[in-house]
C-alpha cells in the first residue's frame, strides 16, 4: 500500500535488534516532524520466546506509558489511523537486524570482477559469504553441488556476464545451483538472487523457478569497469526480511503491519544516509556508522550514491568470540586507557559474546568495551573505504576520505558515560580527515528514519534538521607529515560577537575551541608544510562557516593515521590527557 506521509500526522517505527527492540514515535509539532519518544525493551527473537511479537508488544507498551498515547487496541491490533481521541498512529514502518547472519554463497564468473561485486552485494546486509563459486573454480561440478548441500545457504547470489556479454558460462555456473536446490529438502532450499547478464533472465527463471524462490535485480556488473549495486541492494533488503520471516516467528506479522515494506536495519540506516547526502550540497560524502550488537554498519553516500557495508563479524555482541580470531589482540589492547592484562580482554570479549545484553559496570570493563568499539570502527571504516574512496578522489590511501557529516549511532556511543568518551571513540576509531561535523544519534532513531523514509523522505529530512540528533563538534583534522610539535595549521575563528581567537596548531596536539551549541562562527584555515585540510589541495587554506556543537570546534592534529605511543603506560596516560582535553574523564 503506497501512502504519502506528507499529509499524515504520526508514525510509529519498530526496530527489532538482536539485543533490544525499540518502538519509536514521530509526530508533527508546529508543522514539522519531531521525534517524540521511544520505548526500549529486550528483544524476544531468541529463546525462550522465539517470537519477536512479545518484544514488539512490550516496546509499544513502554512507549504508550511514556507518551500516554494508546497505539494498540484491546484486540492487540495497531490502531490506525489516529482516532479523534488521539489514540493510534497514522503510519507504521519496521526494520530488523535480529537473527543469525544469513548464510550466503556467492557465484560469479571472474574472481575479481562479478564475484567481487557479488561479495560486495552480500556485505550490504546481515550475511556471511560462506563459499564462492566461479569460473576459475577448479572443483568438479559435483564438488560444487556438495558444497552447496553441505552449507545449506539461506541465499545464493548469482552474478556474472556483462550486459551483452557472456551467457553460456553463466548458465553453466547456475547448473550446480539448480541441482543442489533439487536435491535439498524443500524447506532447506536457498533463495536465489540473480544479478548477472540480464539477457539470461528467462533462462535462469525457467531453470530455477520450480525449485526455489528466484529473485532478479539489474546486473551489478553491467560492464567490467562499472559496479552498480543500488537496485540489487534494495532487492536484497526485501529478501532479507522474507528469509527472516521464515526463520523467526512474529516477523511475518510485523512485516504485514508494514504492508510488506519491512527491511533490514542496515538498509534502513543506509537509506537515511543517502537522503542526507542528497540534502547536503558539499562535494564530500556523508558517512554513517552504526556500531551494533549484531554488526557494525558503514553507510557512505556520495551525492545519493550509497555504499553500504555490514560487518557481521564486527558486532559487539555474539560475534565478539569470532572477532578474537580475526583481529590480533594487540590491535584491540592498543586502545586501552587503563592497565588490564591481555587475557582479561580475551575473557571480556568471550563473556560478552555469551551475554551480549550485559553491561560494563567497572572501569576496566568499560575501557575494554570502548577499546573493542574503537577497533571495530577502525577496521569497518577502513575496509569499507576501499570501495568508496575513489568516488571523491580525496585523501591518502588507507585514510578515510573527506566525509561530512559523520552520523554515528549505537549503544556503545550513545550510552557512553560521557559525551567526551563518545567523541574520542569516534575520532580514534574513524580518524576523520579534513573538516567534518560529528553527529550523534542519541536516541538510536537513524535506522527508524530510514525505514520511515520509504514512505516519507520529508520525515527523515525534518527530523535530521531538528535537535533529535546531537551535533557533537566540527572537527578539523589536517593530513600530512611532520615531526610532533611542528606547527602545521594556523587557525582563526571569528565569533558572531566579532570576537576573534587565533591558534597555531602543532602536530600531535588535540585542541578544542569553544563554540556554543547553535551559535555560528567563521573559521580561517591556513595549513603549513603542505598539510591538507580538504580545501582543494595540500597547503591550500580558506574560510568556512561552522555551527557550534557540544564540543565546539575540535582540531585533531594527532596525525593521520593516528600513531599511538609504543609504551603502554605512557599511551594510557595520553588517552587520559586527550579525554581531559575534551572535558571528560
Amino acid at each position, binding site marked *: 500500500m503506497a501512502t504519502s506521509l506528507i499529509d499524515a500526522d504520526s508514525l510509529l517505527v519498530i526496530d527489532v535488534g538482536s539485543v533490544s527492540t525499540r518502538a519509536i514515535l514521530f509526530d508533527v509539532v508546529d508543522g514539522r516532524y519531531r521525534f517524540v519518544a521511544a520505548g526500549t525493551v529486550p528483544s524476544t527473537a531468541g*529463546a525462550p520466546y522465539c517470537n519477536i511479537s512479545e518484544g514488539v508488544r512490550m516496546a509499544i507498551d513502554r512507549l504508550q506509558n511514556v507518551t500516554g498515547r494508546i497505539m494498540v487496541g484491546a484486540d492487540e491490533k495497531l490502531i490506525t489511523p489516529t482516532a479523534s481521541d488521539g489514540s493510534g498512529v497514522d503510519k507504521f514502518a519496521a526494520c530488523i537486524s535480529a537473527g543469525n547472519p544469513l548464510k550466503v554463497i556467492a557465484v560469479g564468473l571472474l574472481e575479481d570482477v562479478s564475484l567481487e561485486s557479488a561479495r560486495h552485494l552480500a556485505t550490504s546486509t546481515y550475511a556471511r559469504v560462506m563459499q564462492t563459486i566461479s569460473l576459475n573454480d577448479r572443483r568438479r561440478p559435483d564438488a560444487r553441488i556438495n558444497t552447496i548441500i553441505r552449507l545449506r545457504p539461506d541465499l545464493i547470489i548469482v552474478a556474472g556476464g556483462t550486459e551483452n556479454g557472456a551467457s553460456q558460462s553463466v548458465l553453466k555456473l547456475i547448473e550446480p545451483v539448480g541441482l543442489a536446490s533439487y536435491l*535439498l*529438502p524443500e524447506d532447506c532450499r536457498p533463495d536465489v538472487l540473480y544479478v548477472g547478464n540480464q539477457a539470461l533472465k528467462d533462462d535462469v527463471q525457467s531453470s530455477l523457478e520450480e525449485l526455489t524462490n528466484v529473485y532478479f535485480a539489474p546486473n551489478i556488473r553491467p560492464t567490467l569497469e562499472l559496479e552498480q549495486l543500488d537496485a540489487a541492494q534494495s532487492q536484497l533488503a526485501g529478501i532479507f526480511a522474507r528469509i527472516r520471516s521464515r526463520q523467526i516467528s512474529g516477523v511475518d506479522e510485523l512485516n504485514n503491519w508494514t504492508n510488506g515494506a519491512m527491511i533490514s536495519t542496515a538498509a534502513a540506516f543506509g537509506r537515511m544516509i543517502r537522503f542526507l547526502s542528497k540534502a547536503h550540497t558539499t562535494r564530500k560524502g556523508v558517512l554513517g556508522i552504526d556500531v551494533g550488537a549484531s554488526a557494525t554498519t558503514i553507510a557512505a553516500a556520495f551525492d545519493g550514491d550509497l555504499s553500504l557495508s555490514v560487518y557481521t563479524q564486527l558486532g559487539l555482541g555474539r560475534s565478539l568470540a569470532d572477532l578474537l580470531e580475526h583481529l590480533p589482540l594487540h590491535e584491540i589492547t592498543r586502545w586501552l586507557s587503563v592497565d588490564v592484562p591481555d587475557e582479561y580482554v580475551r575473557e571480556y570479549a*568471550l563473556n560478552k559474546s555469551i551475554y551480549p545484553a*550485559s553491561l560494563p*559496570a567497572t572501569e576496566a570493563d568499560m575501557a575494554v568495551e570502548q577499546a573493542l568499539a574503537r577497533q571495530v570502527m577502525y577496521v569497518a571504516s577502513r575496509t569499507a573505504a576501499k570501495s568508496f574512496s575513489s568516488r571523491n578522489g580525496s585523501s591518502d590511501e588507507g585514510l578515510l576520505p573527506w566525509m561530512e557529516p559523520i552520523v554515528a549511532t549505537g549503544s556503545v556511543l550513545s550510552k557512553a558515560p560521557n559525551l567526551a568518551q563518545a567523541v574520542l571513540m569516534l575520532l580514534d576509531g574513524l580518524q576523520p580527515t579534513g573538516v567534518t561535523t560529528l553527529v550523534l544519534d542519541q536516541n538510536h532513531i537513524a535506522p527508524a528514519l530510514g525505514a520511515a523514509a520509504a514512505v516519507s523522505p520529508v520525515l527523515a529530512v525534518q527530523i535530521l534538521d531538528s535537535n533529535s540528533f546531537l551535533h557533537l563538534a566540527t572537527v578539523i583534522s589536517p593530513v600530512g607529515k611532520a615531526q610532533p610539535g611542528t606547527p602545521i595549521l594556523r587557525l582563526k575563528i571569528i565569533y558572531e560577537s566579532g570576537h576573534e581567537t587565533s591558534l597555531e596548531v602543532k602536530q600531535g596536539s588535540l585542541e578544542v575551541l569553544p563554540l556554543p551549541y547553535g551559535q555560528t562562527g567563521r573559521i580561517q584555515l591556513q595549513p603549513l608544510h603542505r598539510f591538507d585540510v580538504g580545501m582543494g589541495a595540500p597547503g591550500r587554506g580558506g574560510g568556512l562557516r561552522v555551527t557550534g556543537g557540544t564540543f565546539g570546534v575540535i582540531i585533531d592534529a594527532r596525525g593521520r593515521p593516528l600513531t599511538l605511543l609504543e609504551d603502554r603506560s605512557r599511551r594510557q596516560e595520553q588517552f587520559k590527557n586527550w579525554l581531559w582535553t575534551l572535558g571528560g*574523564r
Partner: protein
Amino acid sequence: MLAPIIHILPFTVIRRERILPGMGKVLVRAGQRVSSLDVIAEANLRPEYLLLNVARGLGLTPERADQFIQCQAGDHLAEGDMVAGPVGMARRVVRSPSDGQVILVGSGQILIEVASKPFQLKAGIPGEVVELIADRGATVETTGALVQGVWGNGHIDFGVMVVLAKSPDHLLTPDQLDVSMRGSIVLAARCEDPEVFKSAEELPLRGLILASMSASIAPIAARMQIPVIILEGFGHSPMNTAAFKLLTTNERREVALNAEPWDPYSETRPEIIIPMPGSERLSLPQETGTFTPDQQVRVLRTPHAGEIGVILGIKGSVTFPSGLKAQAADIRLESGRMAVIPLANLEVLA
C-alpha cells in the same frame, strides 16, 4: 524488565524437543524410554553426490551418450557396476566409482548419491518419548536435576560423575586426572592448563564440567571430542554455590551431558541432567518472567561474577563505577554483602 532465566534445579521435569535440521526418519515411538545416547532420528543431512560425465567417458556427444546409459533414477549401484556402454570396438564402458543410488540421468550425465552414514540425532537426555514430531524428531521428557551452562563444545555423552572439585574455585590440573576416572564425567571448577584436555581425551573421560576456563584455552576445549561444559564463563570465576552444591551432592550418579553450544535462535543451551525417578506431578520450570524482589539471581559480569544473591529491590537508573547509567537492583549476596548490580547483568534462578 524481562529477566533471563537459568535453571539450577534439584528436581524438576525436563522436556526437550529434539529435532533434525531437515527432514529425516524418526526412529522412536511415543512412550519409549531412551537413554541420552539413543538415536531419536536420522537423516542424510550432508549427502555426497557424484556427477558422472558419461559422454566424456564414452567419447560421445551427450545426446548420443544417453542412448548407452544402462541405469535409471532410483537404481541402487555397487562400486564397479557398469552404468553406461559398451561403445565401439573398444567396448568402452563407464562404471560406478562407489556404492550409491542413481538420482538423475540425462544430458550425458548420471548423478549418483553416494552411500554414506546418516547423521544421527541423539536423545541428549534420558527419559520418555512423549511426542513425535513427524519426519523431524521427538519430544523427550524426564525428571531429575537440571543445571544449565553458558558454553559447550557440541558433544553429548552420559556417565557416572566423579567430583574433583573440593571447592567452587578448585583449580583442575592434569595430574588430578587418573585412570580410575576413565569413562566417567569429571566435575571440576576452574581450568587454566590446556594439558588437562589432552589428559581427559587420553584416558578418556566421557565429559568435563567446569565453572570457568581461561580464554586462551577455549579454542582447544572447542576441538575436544568429549563434551565440555562451562557453567559461569571465561576467566577465573568459581562455580556458583547453587550449582556446586547440587552437583557435588550427586557424586557417583549417572549424569547426561549435553554440551550443545548456546544459541538462542536455535533454542539450544548446554545442560547437565541428573535423571531421578519421580512420582509426584511436577510442572515445567518457569522459562519467562520479569525481575521482582525476593528472586534468587546469579551475577553475570564483574564485579561479583558468578555470585548468587537475592533481589531486595529494583532501583531506577544508577551510575556505576564505569560511569554507565543503567537500571539496577539492590542485591544481598550469599556472603551477606550488599551490591547494586545492573539488571542487564543478572539472571534469575528458577
